[in-house]
């Protein structure tokens, strides 16, 4: 990459030259050292004055000089410490800029090849979006001290993902308060939504899943995540033309003859840059769901529930991972509004639902599981509201990279187990409330594929 202009965030909001930033850090580092030399000189003068004063009991006249020296030395100590922190931060910022530049540049080139002539229509928007992390990096430059740019970016994104919430909320640096920033984001978003069109759902029955994991009724929170992971990992075998879009509808049968329903909603499978994509788990759904807008995916879930014979009085638990969690929250909200289905519980895993989950009615209990090292739940830039019916459980499951920190089997089964064994009364209350989904005698799993037309 060029060292002259490393990163520019949309509409020239962010411009940076990593090499120049690194050089400035070096100069400030030398400045701090020279200030520290002054401090050392002044400190020794201060103690020499004490010696002189001890020889002249009447030398009260030099007391103001001692006080002034003491004040100066304290200031110099503080400034040296402060400058050294600044130096460390700008050095990390330079590494992050380089990492983000490489990251954004790679995606840029990939999309350019994939879209061909159509690329020019969204190029300005993409440039803004792809460099968005640069602004985050700039605002949240932290003293990570990582080695390579890639390590710096990975360390940044996995060591403290909540920084995204902080920075995007503007709490730290007022990023979103910037008058130029909000129109930029809205403009980018509008362009992308126009390009990645939503459509209407087509629901196809894919039969009953008779594999052993699909026939075992769940007994724990971790089993619920395991069930979602089963569908997530095996849908490619049956989905045909699309990578994603297959959901489970599980009928749980109880000894007293009653039944409950679990719907597993997998996350994103397709990052194709196609503007019209039959896969409902791609860009079009992500861009809309993160803001709470209705999606074809959500409408498909509701249609599939109807096709499967879910009744309006059946108690329903929606389990969603990532995008699937966002869709689950919106499905619960819209089912309650319409009275079409009775969703009583939602479990999300690694889903950015901060903007949307507050709209779920109080009759729906939501449990949001978040891995502290997973960046994805923070992509909406807003923490989940803490209300009586919205419970967020965050556990730290260390993973060496961002991808694994987001996986159901690598990370979120552990988060579920940690939540279940936490002894927290709110978690216990949630699980007691969801007991009917965890004590069934048998389960029948039906698969449906949702595509966009």
């Amino acid at each position, binding site marked *: 990459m060029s060292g002259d*202009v490393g990163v520019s*965030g949309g509409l*020239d*909001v*962010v*411009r*940076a*030259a990593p090499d*120049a*930033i690194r050089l*400035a850090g070096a*100069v*400030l580092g030398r*400045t701090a050292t*020279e*200030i520290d030399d*002054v401090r050392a*000189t*002044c400190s020794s*003068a201060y103690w*020499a*004055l004490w*010696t*002189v004063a001890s*020889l*002249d*009991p*009447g*030398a009260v*006249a*030099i007391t*103001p*000089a*001692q006080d*002034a*020296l003491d*004040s*100066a030395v304290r*200031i*110099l100590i*503080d*400034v040296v410490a*402060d*400058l050294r922190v*600044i130096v460390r*931060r*700008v050095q990390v*910022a330079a590494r992050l800029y380089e990492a983000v530049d490489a990251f954004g540049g790679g995606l840029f080139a990939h999309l350019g090849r994939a879209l061909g002539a159509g690329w020019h229509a969204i190029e300005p928007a993409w440039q803004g979006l792809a460099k968005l992390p*640069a*602004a985050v*990096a*700039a*605002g*949240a*430059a932290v003293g990570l001290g990582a080695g390579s740019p890639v390590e710096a970016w990975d360390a940044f994104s996995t060591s403290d993902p909540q920084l995204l919430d902080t920075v995007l909320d503007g709490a730290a*640096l*007022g*990023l979103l308060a*910037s008058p130029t920033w909000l129109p930029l984001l809205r403009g980018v978003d509008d362009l992308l939504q126009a390009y990645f069109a939503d459509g209407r759902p087509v629901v196809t029955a894919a039969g009953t899943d008779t594999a052993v994991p699909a026939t075992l009724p769940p007994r724990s929170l971790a089993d619920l995540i395991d069930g979602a992971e089963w569908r997530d990992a095996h849908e490619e075998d049956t989905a045909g033309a699309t990578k994603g879009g297959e959901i489970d509808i599980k009928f749980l049968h109880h000894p007293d003859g009653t039944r409950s329903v679990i719907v597993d909603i997998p996350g994103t499978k397709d990052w194709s840059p196609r503007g019209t994509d039959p896969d409902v788990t791609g860009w079009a759904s992500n861009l809309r769901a993160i803001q709470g807008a209705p999606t074809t995916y959500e409408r498909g879930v509701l249609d599939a529930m109807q096709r499967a014979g879910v009744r309006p009085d059946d108690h329903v638990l929606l389990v969603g991972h990532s995008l699937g969690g966002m869709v689950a929250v919106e499905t619960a909200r819209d089912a309650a509004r319409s009275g079409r289905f009775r969703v009583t519980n939602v479990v999300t895993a690694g889903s950015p639902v901060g903007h949307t989950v507050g709209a779920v009615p109080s009759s729906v209990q939501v449990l949001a599981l978040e891995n502290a090292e997973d960046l994805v739940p923070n992509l909406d830039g807003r923490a989940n509201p803490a209300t009586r019916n919205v419970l967020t459980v965050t556990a730290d499951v260390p993973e060496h990279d961002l991808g694994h920190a987001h996986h159901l089997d690598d990370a979120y089964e552990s988060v579920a187990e940690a939540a279940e064994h936490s002894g927290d009364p709110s978690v216990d209350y949630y699980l007691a409330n969801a007991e009917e989904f965890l004590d069934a005698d048998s389960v029948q799993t039906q698969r449906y594929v949702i595509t966009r037309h």
Partner: protein
Amino acid sequence: MSAPVPAAAADEIARLVARIGMQPDLVRALAVRAAAVADALLWHSAGATAFRDQVHADAVRLRGAADSLDAAADVLRRYASGLPR
């Protein structure tokens, strides 16, 4: 009435005045350098603004330290001028 200050102490005061008296200009020069580095840097972002604000705040503090050092040197000069030679 205080005891007479030994000549050695008077010499030490003179050395201290010279040593301390050199520091304020040096500190001010370092403050100017730090602020200039921050201002001249090609870096525009919210993070860059915070960076410049921090460096400028430190430059202001350095000027305050320089003023204190000036005051200390001035007190010592006046004290030294009253000492017997």
